[in-house]
């Protein structure tokens, strides 16, 4: 008697397990299909970028069967993409470095140092997160123009050397550190700037990586500001170059897609390498936005 009940139970459990497995496999199939659809524009982009231009109107397919690398050479000849790459890389490198340095310094001061006006200053800086870029666009442009920085690297870089999000990120991180962390170093005669440099900074890998990827993607992908402060094609960033290329060679899809592919690679590669940090801090950035 007990034996039958027992075996009935195991059969029931086994059925439940099988149903669960089937449902999970079904979810995977669904997710892979949706994933394929979501990434479809990228497959399309790569396929077209490798197609012989003469075959562009032949019924399209999503997986490349031709490999016409000439399209990339042609795109590079039609527009100075190397120059755009260089400009964007210089701007992105400076913006990332500046944000890491200045946000970490300010975050350290707001979390660990006492000074008059600390809380009110922090609140003011934080509240600027609510200010849309539209409203600061025209005055920022005028300031950059007065400083003679139109069509220069500083013009592309300086307004973004620090971000309120970065300051908040580092402050939250440093405030969790144990209270007596500095005490020993202070007794040994270290200055507080040395403590930041030798104690806090070496412990900051997660926020450095997270802010690094945020700032890099921002710098690499930004469009409106470079559009406003650069009129000289030699100073264009990759996004401006691509948009202008698209305006001029609007239907030369093969070289256009080659240029687009080249422009998205750094952002996607950087994201995949640092995605762990990026995603972990996404919720924080969401709460602030």
């Amino acid at each position, binding site marked *: 008697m007990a034996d039958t009940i027992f075996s009935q139970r195991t059969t029931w459990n086994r059925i439940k397990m099988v149903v669960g497995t089937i449902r999970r496999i079904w979810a995977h199939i669904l997710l892979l299909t949706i*994933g394929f659809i979501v990434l479809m524009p990228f497959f399309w982009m790569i396929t077209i970028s490798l197609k012989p231009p003469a075959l562009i109107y032949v019924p399209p397919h999503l997986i490349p069967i031709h490999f016409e690398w000439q399209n990339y050479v042609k795109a590079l000849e039609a527009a100075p993409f190397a120059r755009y790459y260089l400009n964007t890389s210089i701007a992105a490198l400076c913006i990332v470095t500046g944000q890491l340095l200045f946000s970490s310094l300010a975050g350290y001061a707001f979390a660990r*140092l006492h000074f008059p006006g600390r809380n009110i200053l922090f609140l003011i800086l934080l509240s600027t997160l609510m200010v*849309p870029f539209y409203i600061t666009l025209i005055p920022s442009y005028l300031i950059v123009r007065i400083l003679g920085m139109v069509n220069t690297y500083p013009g592309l870089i300086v*307004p973004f050397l620090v971000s309120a999000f970065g300051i908040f990120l580092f402050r939250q991180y440093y405030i969790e550190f144990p209270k007596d962390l500095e005490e020993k170093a202070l007794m040994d005669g270290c200055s507080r700037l040395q403590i930041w440099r030798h104690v806090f900074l070496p412990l900051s890998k997660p926020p450095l990586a997270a802010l690094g990827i945020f700032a890099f993607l921002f710098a690499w992908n930004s469009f409106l500001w470079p559009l406003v402060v650069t009129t000289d094609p030699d100073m264009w960033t990759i996004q401006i170059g691509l948009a202008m290329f698209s305006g001029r060679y609007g239907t030369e899809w093969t070289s256009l897609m080659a240029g687009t592919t080249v422009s998205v690679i750094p952002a996607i590669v950087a994201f995949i390498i640092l995605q762990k940090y990026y995603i972990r801090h996404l919720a924080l950035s969401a709460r602030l936005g």
Partner: protein
Amino acid sequence: MKEETRTALICVAPATVIIGTFTIFPIFYSFYLSLTDWDGLSPTKNFVGFGNYSQLIADEAFWNSIKLTLCYAVGVTTISLIAGLALASLINRTERLASFYRVIFFIPVVTSFVAAAVVWRSLFSPAGFLSDTFRSIGIPAINWLADPTWAMPALILVGAWMRLGFNTVISLAGLQAIPRGYYDKGKVDGAGALSRFRFITLPLMRPIILLLLVMSLVDAFLVFDLAYVMTGGGPLQATNVAGLLLYKNAFHYYKMGYASAIGMITFAIVLIISLIQMKLLKFGKEV
């Protein structure tokens, strides 16, 4: 001065100077400019009071662009929020490969709007993949971006595609924070899948949904790059969103005062959306 205070000043100075110069000062300066008729070049600025604002209110192009921008924002938010929640609960059910799916769905989010606009222009073109697919299942091809009726839906589709991964990842984080036990208990009590969603998932996810709702609305309201590259505001002003209107007024027609007034109104709308969110979130906590 104490060493601590001195160090603190050194630490916060760069951040304060940059944010002060390029964010805080511009708010006030923008308001000042919006009260003038400045063209951005001439040495004098004529004070016109609220003239720009009353001109805006009478301007049909302005109302058209506000309507279009709201339409875009609501469209993008609705699609990406519902699809994001659905995707997140699907991922949450699989137990494995969650980080793989997260990366897959997030790739469009880290792509630039410009690149997305260029690729989707190609997809929407008469020779593109979408038209071809439609033709093959018997739907007559639409020249999406050249048709005033279809240009905005096309823009919304791309905007939602760019937003989907973000909403999915944040929703997933929220779903993963709900203890499994709640659902097991619900099952024991005889709640079906639908009522489990209605009475367990939804109330616990409410703050996150609200947050994503407001963030998506605000971000989408500030759309610029996508419209600039994909349609340039056309055809027949059908996608001339507020950002484009502001940009054109400031940097094509040199109406800095008028453009600043557009910026101030946009700011006000964004602020109202955020304030409503805060109110709702507080309300949610009391209940």
